[in-house]
């Protein structure tokens, strides 16, 4: 067990955990921030996606010991970003969610895409969003919502 200092959604947090603990479980079990979801634990589904210094990252694959000084932003903090709020609003307007379990990961992925490419092509949307699994099959509305958020954020 070891102490780690993290910056999560702009706040400094200290956790005492085994250094191998993935950031996902530090967020969920340690900091009680359960908006970031466990789906597979091997980086294959994207439900656990957070931003590390703005980069969409699968938190199940990052041991807490490797987070370092990078700023962690989760679904709970993404609304403070204008693009983040625009994406969430577009998701609600488009009625994207069904069971909703994968949507934190979908939204964090979409925000990272739109921050780097404010007006992505359909191909770029599919390439960026294409690795985040949704068993409810909300993909068609995700495409619409990303487009809507893109025009909104402009």
């Amino acid at each position: 067990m070891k102490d780690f200092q993290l910056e999560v959604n702009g706040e400094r947090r200290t956790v005492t955990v085994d250094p191998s603990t993935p950031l996902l479980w530090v967020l969920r079990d340690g900091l009680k921030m359960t908006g970031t979801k466990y789906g597979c634990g091997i980086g294959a589904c994207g439900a656990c996606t957070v931003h590390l210094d703005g980069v969409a990252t699968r938190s199940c694959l990052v041991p807490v010991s490797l987070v370092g000084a990078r700023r962690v932003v989760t679904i709970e903090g993404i609304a403070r970003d204008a693009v983040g709020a625009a994406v969430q609003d577009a998701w609600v307007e488009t009625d994207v969610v069904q069971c909703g379990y994968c949507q934190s990961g979908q939204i964090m992925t979409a925000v990272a895409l739109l921050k780097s490419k404010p007006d992505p092509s359909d191909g770029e949307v599919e390439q960026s969003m294409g690795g985040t699994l949704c068993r409810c099959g909300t993909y068609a509305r995700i495409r619409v919502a990303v487009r809507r958020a893109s025009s909104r954020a402009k």
Partner: protein
Amino acid sequence: MRRFDNTGGMSRRSFLRSSTAAAGGLLVALYVERSAVAAGTAAAPAFPPSAFVTIGADGRIVIMVNRIEVGQGIHTSLPMILADELDADWAAVTAEIAPVADVYKDPILGMQMVAGSTATANSYRQYRELGAKTRAMLVATAAERWRVGADRCRTENSVVYGPSGRSARYGELAADAARRPIPEKVRLKEPGELRIIGKRVRRLDGRAKVDGSQKFGLDLDLPGMKTALVARPPLFGGGVKSFDDKAARAVAGVRDIFQVPLTYGGSGVVVVADGFWPAKQARDRLKIEWDLAGVERADTAALLASYKDKARRTATVAAAIGDAGAIDKLGADRTIVAEYEFPYLAHAPMEPLNTIIRYDRDRAEVWMASMSGTADHLAIAQVLGLPPAKVTCHLLFGGGGFGRRGPLDCHLAREAAAVAKQLPGTAVKLVWTREDDIRGGYYRPMFVHRVQVGIGADGKPAAWKHVIVGQSFMKDSGLPFEPYLVKDGIDHLVVEGTVNHPYTIPNFHLSADHTKVNVPVLSWRSIGHTHNSFVVETMIDELAARAKVDPIEYRLRLLRPEEKRLISSMKLLRDKTAAWRSSLPVGRALGVACGTYYGSGIACAVDVSIENGRPRIHRATAALDCGVAVNPMTIEAQVHSGFVFGLSQLVAGGAITLADGVVEQRNFDRFTPPYMADAPVEIDVHLVPSTEAPTGMGETPVPVISPAVANALAALTGKRYRTLPITKL
């Protein structure tokens, strides 16, 4: 004490009770009974005080939903139905999932469950009556205050209006209204009077599911709660011979390690720890010697050979219409013989399975996203040795279900109870890792179909002989549903979609072999239709192609006249796709499929090309008739969802296979459901206008998409695809 009526069938009796809410609001409870046979219990009902609608003094309206929300949108559509008859201000409405209680049982099924696309169909009238009766009580209260006849009052947007410009908000009336007797009979609105039903309404749970605040079972954090993981045997039914937990117990945060019985048979070793990560670390360090002696080792290749052999012989007859020998009278040039293969399929809902139980010796509390609330409640009480009344069961939002959260043997509930019983006073969350889920069985069964179709001079099927081989999870289950679903040795859930196909076929013979295999199996969204409709709809397509008739026209000529909803859907599909069907670019092809499922008719057309060796679905159009469309926005979402889920059986990585008894897939690296690029790029949904009672929609779209895509692929390559998943084009 009231008794169940014995009229059976669809008849039911209902009565209402009201009570004043602690907060001074209006509480209405509608108790619905039906025959004890369907309820599966002969015991006299003991109804707890409970309610469906609460109106606060501030005008807030809380509507209880007697089904869990797993994505299907019922958390919005049942409140819409009630709110419409109540003339409620929709903006003031919130919804809550009802806990397990007799009052919340499905009025037709007699138990709380999410199954068979029944929610809207079975509770439509129930929720309308609840709304109308509550409204009548509010109107009567206002009329009494104003000393006018109730017939001189009208309601709109949570306000009662009376003569001379008088008005009262529901919130002002609620406390007094709750003291009134509940009317026995109320008038329900005529179709033209409905204001919320039929509108595109956004989900009530939309915002909480985009800001991370929606709690699922995996997210609940109770005081002192521990996380439990079970090390399961490598073969289904295997057990623990011995285990060494020294290294596992050395992991910081581990609280306990012990052996537990598994519901399917055999046993496992459970690790209880402070959180998921220490539990997983410790489980990985367990050294377990398994007792696998005598355990049947299912093997996909061997099963396939055996199923194909069985399919060559007539099995238990499910249907025999016309002349059984007709098929043999048609020559080989007029006969198609086809063998179809379907693998085991995992449901893999996005939220890994989990159940939370706190056992306090004389009582217990449960939190789970159960699709079988009533059955799981009773199972937990049984394992804990408590009377059901001492077990409180909270039902939660589920991160997907697709059938997996309602296993017929209640193993999720039973195993969690067996673990919790060893740790009195501690809330224990039993979690399945994704690996546990993918390897854990309870799959859509593997099937082989063998079909012989004789073609008449008119190009239509003159004779059809069909054998289905695969497991039944209902036959010999001993469940109360078994007598309704298994008749003369045939499990309807295995043959549905073929036995009741929608076409005119004069000579038809269907038999099935419900073979036994040591792999636990379960219903998978749309159950038997997943494989049956694939066979029927690809075969019909092949017949249309041989007859050189357009696949939509061929079906319209062949559909039985009584398939009214399917015919209206197919005609609507023909009209709505006319433009894109006639202008398909080179390299793209049309695929069509249709069917009647859960009372609703659906017809589907896809526009497909082949890109990088995989099907690319540019567009999918659905036309359907599900009676009254309570929320077209949700129905459209269910079509999106059903199509993508249906494609699960087509995508290359979509199979569960076994080698020498061991499941070969572990996680989403080798078991890969459809991702965005596998799904239709665009989906358009068209509804046949209707004022008939609503029918099922949650599963209806699932069966048609994969045959439609396979038919398009056949048009592109000239090959017929009869082995799923499609690994090579």
